[in-house]
């Protein structure tokens, strides 16, 4: 069985084709990079609409199949930016209706976890999912993914990007901050905000920018920013690990590429005797393959999304999605 997945929740329009053995037949992505500032939802949507035909064609070509051989069409139904999601959903509905294929709406966050499990051969990890739009720590338990901790304001990737942008660093912000941080060893205290199991990064951003304005070398600010933010993530991850007694810890999302964060979470996992895995960058960032794979899992367990129920859900929480393909723990 073959599933074609469309991801369009933020600035990437991506199509992935996956078969039921878990082989990724193709993955093609076009990224909208804002010329200045952050992602404007309308501009992202415009980019997606313009790239859709080319990206779809290239994904099919790379997989060496025709659309007729595809059994299921999956798309990101949420969460994400409304206009961007709607563009992908429209493409998916059109394909499903025109070629008479079943349609499956997929939760973006669930998809990140599922593709990670497939690639890292994990069963039920505690997942640290940190990207530009999401920061949460989650694990499947009794029918649903439970959220053990999440950001109360901005996402971790958003913190790094916003800081980089206002500090005049090149896009993407995360790698730029990481490069500079490697040049410093001087830690300056920044607000460390853990509320129970939840995180808050906005005060950290304000304070880091203030240090910069005061003339503190940018390397030291980047170093301190990373150390503080990542220590917060690690603390919550560690508590969730102790709480769930999970024997697997997975790191995914765009920020997963950060080596310092990998190193720190690896130490957390080691201390609790859990196997640690980082999802490969291609599949840790937003991608159509994860949507295709999760759509396939859902379809095989009987889920379909009729067109009338296929409206996008920009605020669809991971803990509200029924997961029929996972056995109750």
């Amino acid at each position, binding site marked *: 069985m073959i599933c074609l997945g469309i991801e369009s929740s933020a600035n990437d329009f991506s199509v992935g084709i996956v078969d039921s053995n878990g082989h990724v037949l193709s993955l093609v992505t076009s990224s909208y990079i804002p010329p200045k500032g952050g992602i404007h939802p309308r501009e992202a949507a415009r980019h997606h609409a313009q790239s859709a035909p080319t990206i779809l064609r290239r994904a099919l070509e790379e997989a060496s199949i025709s659309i007729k051989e595809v059994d299921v069409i999956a798309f990101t139904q*949420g*969460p994400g930016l409304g206009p961007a999601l709607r563009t992908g959903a429209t493409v998916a509905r059109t394909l499903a209706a025109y070629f008479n294929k079943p349609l499956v709406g997929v939760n973006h966050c669930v998809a990140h976890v599922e593709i990670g499990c497939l690639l890292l051969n994990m069963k039920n990890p505690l997942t640290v999912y940190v990207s530009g739009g*999401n920061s949460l720590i989650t694990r499947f338990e*009794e029918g649903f993914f*439970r*959220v*053990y901790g*999440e*950001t*109360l304001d901005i*996402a971790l990737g958003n913190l790094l990007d916003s800081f980089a942008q206002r500090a005049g660093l090149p896009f993407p912000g995360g790698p730029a901050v990481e490069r500079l941080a490697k040049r410093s060893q001087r*830690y300056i*205290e920044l607000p*460390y905000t*853990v*509320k*129970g*199991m*939840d995180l808050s990064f906005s005060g950290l951003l304000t304070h880091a920018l203030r240090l910069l304005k005061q003339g503190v070398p940018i390397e030291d600010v980047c170093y301190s920013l990373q*150390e*503080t933010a990542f*220590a917060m993530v*690690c*603390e919550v991850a*560690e*508590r969730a*690990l*102790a*709480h769930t007694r999970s024997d697997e810890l997975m790191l995914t999302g765009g920020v997963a590429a950060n080596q310092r964060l990998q*190193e*720190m*979470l690896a*130490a*957390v996992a080691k*201390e609790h005797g859990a196997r640690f895995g980082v999802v490969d960058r291609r599949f840790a960032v937003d991608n159509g393959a994860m949507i295709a794979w999760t759509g396939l899992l859902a379809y095989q367990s009987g889920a379909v999304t009729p067109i009338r129920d296929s409206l996008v*859900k*920009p*605020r*669809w*929480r991971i803990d*509200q999605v029924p997961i029929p393909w996972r056995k109750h723990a």
Partner: protein
Amino acid sequence: MEKARLIARGAEAHIYLIEDWHGFRAVAKVRVSKPYRVRELDTIIRARRTKLEAYFLYKVKRYGVPTPTVLHVDLHNATIIMEYVEGILLREHLLRTPDEDAVEQLGSLAALLHTHSIVHGDLTTSNAIFSDEQVVLFDFGLAKSAVTVEDFGVDVLLFKRSLLSVHFKYFNELFEAFIRGYQRVAGKNRTNTVLKKVSEIERRGRYVSRELR
């Protein structure tokens, strides 16, 4: 700390049992150094939380909140030696029986703290001991003085979330019991104000479904 025996390993601290600490049966709570954290930050966090915890464990007693008695504080080693409280974690107790009465007690304790301008900061069923039909509160490492409804709301929301993640089968009964206990101490008006804030914070949260907004 001779004859100390490790009895629990939390994410943040190790708990040792000391059978005879100058005649007391005591536990030592040692906030351990985290290898993944930069040393400066590690030292700041451990010392700060030890200090806060010792301060609030002592302070809240005068408001009628049962806590283990602090016997000794060693900031340098991020260690608090306190009275050993006989009993089981409220979490374990509730997993055995969804005891509404115990949760109602906890609700009253939370309200007692709040009416004295203190928030616990990590109100979960893992941070209370069920001892002789009484709930004893501990783990004040994230506690702080607070006056805004926002702070109280976050405290209640944290508890709500912990119920949802561990005791989800009996969430409705248990959360109602908590509110009952809270209201008994804080009164109807104050409780409603806090609950309104809780739903406001929830709505503010990321990706809350439209039905709740």
